[in-house]
């Protein structure tokens, strides 16, 4: 995979090179056309020069030029040649410089002008200009002549070569300069990304806990989310460690008790009772700490969970388990009620609360769920589960919530469900209250704040 820097550099370079390439070709073409036009004008000038130097007898006889203002017409092989041809094909005159044969045009009508390039038999290239002339067609002696000038293309070629050299040279120099500037700009533009990468490396190495630099707004959202993720990751780690530590420590007390019991001289019945009691306690401790470690807790990225779907699932299951009781359930869940958190956590909360309600309730269970404060990005969430069972006495509430936590006390009885629910609620910054329901039994209310 090509890096972003590489991609940008590549695209910008291609565009730059294309731009200057095309510009160069266009300039080249324009200049070449200009040079050809100049050549044509120059040749026409020579034609006039030759015409000027040419005289005619009153009978229309031509007197070829003796001297010409341009010296090169007198130097053999100079590259500038002139000739006059009668339209019957007879060569009337050619300049002294003419040392090569040039296939000039002739038989041009009066006033006809032709400009072009031609190659002679030696492969040399020439530009030529031919002009058709005739004198006084009213006399019976009139004649038609073709005046032609040819100039070697070497001059124009040398000119265009010089031009091309300086054109492409300067374009290449500008291109290279711009490429370099662009590379620098890209480096600067992408430097925040590189900084994030560097910072992440530092975090990986364990030297930092979060991305603490200042970043441009385009990636701040990303770095903020990354920080939230790192934070929850660290929190999880902390919780695992804590849960593991708590687990080990809290198992020590029952283990010590068992140890002492084995070495004591208690009668068998007492031994059995103590062992059974402590084993029960240990399994509660393990269950509680396992649940605690499994709790996901509040997270910035939690997708909303449709509460009704989960409630239906759990109620379906519990309906089977408590089939004999024939419980009546009233589920009052506001449409579209959602919970922003971990599905497993919500399942745990609902499962434990509803299970207790089905277990302790006599004939009826009620569940309410809604999203108050729905104006916020993450609305709050409230659940109330009520039953018509015996309820939880005021002086037992504390105990019910502490099961599995306070290991220094001998707590008998089943169920650490409420303690687990309370723990999960806390991890979301929520509040759990236990009261008496209008049905007569227990009512558990949980309120999660919005954010």
């Amino acid at each position, binding site marked *: 995979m090509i890096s972003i820097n590489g991609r940008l550099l590549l695209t910008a370079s291609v565009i730059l090179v294309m731009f200057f390439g095309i510009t160069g070709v266009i300039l080249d073409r324009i200049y070449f056309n200009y040079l050809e036009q100049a050549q044509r004008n120059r040749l026409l000038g020579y034609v006039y020069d030759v015409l000027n130097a040419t005289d005619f007898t009153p009978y229309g006889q031509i007197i070829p030029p003796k001297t010409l203002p341009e010296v090169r017409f007198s130097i053999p092989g100079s590259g500038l040649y002139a000739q006059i041809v009668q339209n019957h094909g007879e060569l009337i005159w050619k300049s002294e410089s003419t040392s090569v044969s040039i296939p000039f045009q002739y038989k041009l009508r009066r006033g006809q002008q032709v400009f072009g390039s031609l190659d002679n038999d030696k492969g040399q290239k020439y530009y030529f200009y031919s002009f058709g002339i005739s004198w006084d067609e009213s006399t019976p002696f009139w004649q038609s002549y073709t005046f032609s000038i040819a100039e070697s293309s070497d001059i124009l070629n040398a000119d265009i070569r010089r031009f091309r050299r300086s054109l492409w040279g300067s374009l290449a120099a500008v291109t290279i300069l711009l490429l370099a500037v662009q590379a620098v700009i890209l480096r600067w533009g992408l430097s925040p990304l590189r900084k994030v990468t560097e910072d992440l490396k530092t975090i990986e190495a364990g030297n930092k806990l979060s991305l603490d630099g200042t970043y441009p707004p385009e990636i701040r959202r990303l770095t903020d989310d990354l920080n939230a993720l790192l934070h929850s990751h660290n929190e999880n780690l902390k919780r695992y460690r804590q849960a593991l530590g708590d687990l080990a420590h809290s198992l020590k007390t029952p283990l010590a008790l068992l140890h002492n019991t084995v070495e004591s001289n208690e009668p068998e019945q007492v031994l059995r009772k103590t062992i059974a009691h402590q*084993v029960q306690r240990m*399994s509660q401790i393990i*269950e509680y700490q*396992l*649940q605690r470690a*499994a709790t996901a807790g509040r997270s910035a990225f939690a997708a909303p969970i449709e509460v009704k779907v989960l409630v239906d*699932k*759990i109620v*379906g*299951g519990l309906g*089977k*388990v408590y*089939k*004999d009781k024939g419980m009546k359930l009233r589920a009052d869940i506001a449409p579209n009620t959602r919970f922003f958190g971990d*599905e*497993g956590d919500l*399942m*745990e909360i*609902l*499962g*434990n609360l509803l299970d207790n309600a089905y277990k302790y309730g006599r004939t009826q269970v009620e569940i309410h769920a809604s999203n108050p404060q729905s104006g916020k990005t993450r609305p709050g969430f409230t659940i109330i589960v009520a039953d018509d069972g015996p309820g939880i006495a005021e002086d037992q509430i504390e105990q019910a919530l502490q099961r599995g936590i306070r290991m220094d006390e001998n707590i008998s009885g089943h169920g650490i469900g409420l303690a687990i629910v309370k723990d999960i609620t806390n991890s979301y910054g929520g509040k759990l209250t236990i009261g008496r329901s209008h049905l007569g039994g227990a009512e558990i209310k949980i309120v999660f704040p919005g954010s």
Partner: protein
Amino acid sequence: MRILIVEDEAGLRDQLQSRLRSEGYAVDVAASGSEGLYLGQEYDIDLAIIDLGLPGMSGIEIIKQLRASGRDYPIMILTARGRWQDKVEGLEVGADDYMVKPFHIEELLARVRVLIRRSSGITQPVLSFGPIELDTTTQTVRAHGQNVDLTAFEYKVLEYLIFNAGKVVSKSELTEHIYEQDYDRDSNVIEVFIRRLRIKLDPDNSLNVIETLRGRGYRFTLEQTKPQ
């Protein structure tokens, strides 16, 4: 009553098997998912106890396939994971109850009794048939207000007949539900159980509690009455 246990931990499996046997159940065991599925589909099972965390085929998969192939006997799941997600998933695919490890075996037995009774369409834990009363919770039988002393096997035979009261139960069906797969099925033993039950329940043979239909099987004849 015939119970299938699918559990890969040998210690727990053996403990459950011997405990359920001593309660008079016929117990088949499987240590792997595929074996459990095979037994669950091939044998006439009254209840299955399936561990969710099996190697190879998972407990959830077994339950799905059993239910898909039309087996509708109650299924109890055992799980080491106490998370509700696991429990609910198990119940959703077709299990009827769950136990989270570690559990009290007494509680498991009580739930097994409830599940079997419920699957027979009986809603009360105590069933009365005139002078005869069957308590499925304590697994005791009273006749004319007196406790009848039955062995676990005798109780299971009677319970099976009562759960199918009014229907003719063939000898082979009875053997199928009372004995395990490798047991030597001597049908004479059933006859012996039936004779002993008749004597214990109805010594003067005035009620004709269990009727013999020649060549077809047995039938529990008494009508259910409201418990006092």
